[in-house]
């Protein structure tokens, strides 16, 4: 699968992204490619720049320098709304859900459908659409009318991801989606990530658990001190190599795409 996708033009291509906070260099000349139907894991120690990169992609932060191409066209992502319009969605670490509202209400919050312009909400339509999104993800939630406060942490993560799919994004960024989850719930979310790949989305997943990330991703990109510090095929790379790259010891392999024609 990865062998095939590398030959195509990447969905997202970032070149020489640099971002400073005052004197602190959060990102220095970072390169990143994501193809459609590919899951790229971003790993690195705390403060390596993973979340900063995610925020640049999502339009929350602006890079000082660098080039962002989406679907082969150069783009700027000045705001989260602009990212949304470009088909980029992000699920933040702290889930943004209203516990008092139902699953369907949360999925369409802020993007409610109306029966007509200026009219009341199309509740049936939103519930049907929410059900179809959750079914595509094969998420096990009893009813779209269930209040979110009655869901498990894993189910909430699924709702948060389903929220982003209403706008039919091309690229999804998941910031530590399994950080607060139990083992079973983590497995559920990882299955969900694979389903997102099967739907043809490009997925960037940020996390710490190497075993989980190797299992779910096609490629692992390591950041260290805001710089690229290695790119690994998830299926073949040894965990020791990846840990060495994260910690800054040992050899640093060239990113695969830099040697491709």
């Amino acid at each position: 699968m990865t062998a095939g996708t590398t030959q195509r033009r990447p969905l997202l291509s970032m070149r020489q992204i640099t971002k400073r906070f005052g004197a602190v260099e959060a990102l220095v000349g970072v390169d990143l490619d994501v193809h459609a139907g590919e899951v790229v894991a971003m790993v690195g120690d705390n403060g390596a720049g993973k979340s900063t990169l995610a925020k640049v992609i999502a339009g929350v932060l602006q890079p000082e320098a660098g080039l962002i191409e989406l679907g082969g066209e150069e783009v700027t992502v000045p705001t989260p709304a602009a990212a949304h319009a470009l088909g980029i969605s992000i699920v933040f670490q702290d889930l943004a859900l209203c516990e008092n509202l139902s699953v369907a209400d949360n999925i369409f919050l802020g993007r409610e459908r109306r029966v007509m312009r200026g009219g009341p909400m199309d509740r049936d339509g939103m519930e049907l659409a929410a059900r179809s999104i959750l079914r595509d993800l094969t998420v096990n939630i009893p009813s779209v009318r269930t209040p979110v406060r009655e869901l498990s942490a894993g189910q909430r993560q699924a709702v948060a991801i389903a929220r982003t799919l209403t706008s039919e994004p091309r690229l999804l960024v998941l910031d530590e989606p399994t950080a607060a989850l139990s083992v079973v719930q983590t497995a559920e979310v990882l299955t969900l990530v694979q389903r997102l790949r099967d739907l043809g989305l490009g997925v960037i997943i940020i996390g710490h658990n190497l075993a989980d990330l190797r299992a779910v991703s096609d490629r692992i990109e390591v950041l260290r001190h805001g710089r690229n510090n290695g790119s690994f095929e998830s299926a073949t790379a040894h965990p020791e190599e990846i840990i060495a790259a994260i910690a800054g010891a040992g050899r640093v392999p060239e990113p695969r795409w830099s040697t491709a024609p």
Partner: protein
Amino acid sequence: MKSLKELFGGGARQFGMVFALLALVLIFQISTGGKVLTPTNVQNIINGNSYVLILAIGMVLVIIAGHIDLSVGSVAAVVGIIVALAIRDWGIPWWLGVLLGLAVGAVIGAWQGFWVAYVGIPGFITTLAGMMFFRGANQYIGKSNTIPVPKEIQYLGAGYLPEWGPNTGLNNSTLVLGIAAIAAVVWVETRRRRSAVRLGAEPAPVWVSAVRVVALGAVIAYLTFLFGGGRVGTSFPFSGVILAALVLIYGFLSTRTVTGRHVYAVGGNKVAASLSGVNIRRTNFFVMMNMSVLAALAGIVFIGRSTASGPFDGTNWELDAIAAVFIGGAAVSGGVGTVAGSVIGGLVMAVLNNGLQLMGVGSDLTQMIKGLVLLAAVAFDVYNKGGRTSIFSRLFKSRGGDGTANLTPAVAGTTSMQG
């Protein structure tokens, strides 16, 4: 048990509250020897409490959004004196006086909404200031005098619907209202079934719908005879008609419109709502402004009932309205509550007042009992799931469910969804 669940599925919480209210009415009916359910008494209950119930409708939205409004009594008082003086001294027609009053309410609401939504002063502080300021303004503008209001305004607060047409032994206006209400119940039930079919769920068995319609219809029919069967010239009070219209309008607004949804979202999780693109400031501004407009309306209805505007109108109304909302199942932490529940909560307080009075219980003991009822209601809320569900949903849980009973699992892959 399952069929009972289906019977009350959909609006189960409201059903539970209606049952609590009915139980209270029956207890008083028996212990007073039948003095509660007489036409004159029920008409008095509506006339004497409609202004607090109007306030409760606005207050529940404020509380759902996570604020509180302490100024409603003072706002009602200042609007009352302005309307009374404008009609008497400026000679403007009564309807212009009503419009003026509502406009003053809107301006006051915009003022308070500005401080809450755009400056970020907590609603408690903003409206505590408003409570003092507008109480003073009432007494300053009216020079602490009592100003009478014309007949048309009195009709708004204490009038009855007209008598017309053939002699049916009832007030025909009330009869028409009752028939319309029963028709509405049937219509809502058929819509509920159609919606269930559209969502690919199995609608409840026909007998469940039938029992539901017949039970509600019987209650409405009884109320029609009760309200319409009094002495000639009386009917379902006009202030009750205003109240019923507001319940329908605000019930629709809170559950069916984007604005209402956003009020719940802001109260549930402000940060999440904001990240989702909900305009927090506009929502907060709306609930505060809306509250003051309804307070203005309550003030106008009240001066109509008391035939004059005085310097102490509206004292402690804010507390009655807040109590009604919390008894009606709203959560102290915001995000939870319903318009219908709050009005029923207000009716519980009203029936409690009325029944104890008919039993000859003094106002001292009545106050103590009302205080304990409020405390018990909210204690149940806090005890149950950290204050996020109502006392009534707990009391009637075994029969209730939360309206999801009729829905098939979202992701069971129902074949009816494929097409």
